[in-house]
């Protein structure tokens, strides 16, 4: 019984993270972006500084008609939002929030996380192809190309941490983490975070969505709840990326004074803020610049990080 309650508690926490943190990140984005651009952002919903804006959005989405174009591949079109969203929930199960507080401590947690995150991008490709819309097909192709190019630096920089810790289990990696890993793994952290942003298709890597040229890319034909699920997937993606970067490179729950879970959340929110900040600061990369950054920039950097990690680990 005690074991069952323990598992139940972990699942409730995972679901809270899955449903609540994306809303907080989304609201922070509304307000932080507005103030960076000398605007106020949402001010009306919920009276106090528009705190209920995203709830109002959700209510609106739930009441909107679900339009599926006659030309679309109906079944694939309908399940694509689910394929985009559910993998990010699954990743959360291997991410430790605190010492001895993780959904499941899988031996190959890191590998599991990377593999499942890759599935999430399939949602965008399915949506792009099934919509039978020229803009959507272009967006889906761009999403596919982006996933392919940025998966390699992501995997290489993540395996650098696995080399340093000597384990693929995420709690094991945080347990092995020490402060001097920050400079030691700095290049890897940079590569991982940038490649992760590109996998999420967040600005400045939002070429697949590029609303000024291909409308909304794979999501062009989506309305109502299915569109809302895609938006939720994007923000859960930010949360998952921030969690993974925290756990792999910033020492997860480790830190002085505050309890462990609070340290994890502080680091996650700091990274989520950086994601928002980058969106406001940088213009969109052109498609070929995007590919060049991955192959001529991030992959060589990740290889350099692997060499540094190997030499330091064996010789020191």
């Amino acid at each position, binding site marked *: 019984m005690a074991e069952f309650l323990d598992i139940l508690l972990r699942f409730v926490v995972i679901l809270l993270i899955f449903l609540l943190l994306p809303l907080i990140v989304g609201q922070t984005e509304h307000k932080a972006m507005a103030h960076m651009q000398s605007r106020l952002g949402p001010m009306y919903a919920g009276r106090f500084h528009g705190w209920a804006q995203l709830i109002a959005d959700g209510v609106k989405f739930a009441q909107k008609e679900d*339009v599926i*174009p006659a030309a679309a591949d109906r079944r694939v079109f309908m399940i694509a939002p689910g394929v985009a969203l559910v993998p990010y929930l699954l990743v959360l199960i291997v991410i430790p929030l605190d010492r001895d507080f993780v959904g499941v401590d899988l031996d190959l947690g890191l590998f599991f996380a990377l593999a499942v995150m890759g599935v999430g991008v399939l949602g965008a490709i399915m949506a792009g192809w099934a*919509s039978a819309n020229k803009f959507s097909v272009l967006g889906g192709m761009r999403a596919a190309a982006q996933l392919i190019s940025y998966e390699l630096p992501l995997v290489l920089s993540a395996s650098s941490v696995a080399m340093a810790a000597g384990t693929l289990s995420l709690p094991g990696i945080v347990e092995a983490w020490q402060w001097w890993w920050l400079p030691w793994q700095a290049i890897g952290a940079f590569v991982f975070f940038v490649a992760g942003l590109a996998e999420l298709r967040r600005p400045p890597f939002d070429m697949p969505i590029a609303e000024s040229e291909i409308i909304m890319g794979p999501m062009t034909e989506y309305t*109502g709840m299915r569109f809302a699920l895609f938006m939720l997937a994007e923000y859960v993606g930010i949360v998952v990326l921030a969690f993974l970067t925290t756990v792999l490179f910033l020492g997860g729950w480790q830190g002085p004074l505050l309890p462990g879970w609070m340290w994890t959340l502080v680091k996650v929110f700091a990274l989520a803020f950086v994601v928002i900040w980058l969106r406001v600061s940088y213009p969109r990369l052109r498609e070929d610049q995007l*590919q060049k950054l991955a192959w001529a920039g991030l992959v060589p950097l990740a290889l350099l990080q692997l060499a540094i990690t190997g030499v330091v680990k064996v010789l020191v």
Partner: protein
Amino acid sequence: MDGYFGSYLLVAVLLAIGVGIVAVALLANRMLRPSRPTPDKLLTYECGVDPVGEGWAQSQIRYYVFTYLYVVFAVDAVFLFPWATVFAAPGFGMTTLVEMFVFLGFIALGILYAWRKRVLSWT
């Protein structure tokens, strides 16, 4: 919930919960939304004009080269993970380190080749 399959059982349970969340959201949407389809509404969106030709139009996909590159390197990268956990185990020392540089050399050579063949730049 011990053992190898026990932990993956929990993963399966969470997967079921995730599918359930999506299903409940879509079901709520179905109960709350209006449904008045018209032929015009179901038309493919193309900036307000009637769509020209099919949606699955032909276009030049320049990304296929990257797919080749990815397949080559990703297969290599998969081998990194099992190796990464044991390479610093006592007794290996310099052997695995030299192996690593051979591996990195292969990948770097591949990228250098692609670069020289000008597949990384489009203009």
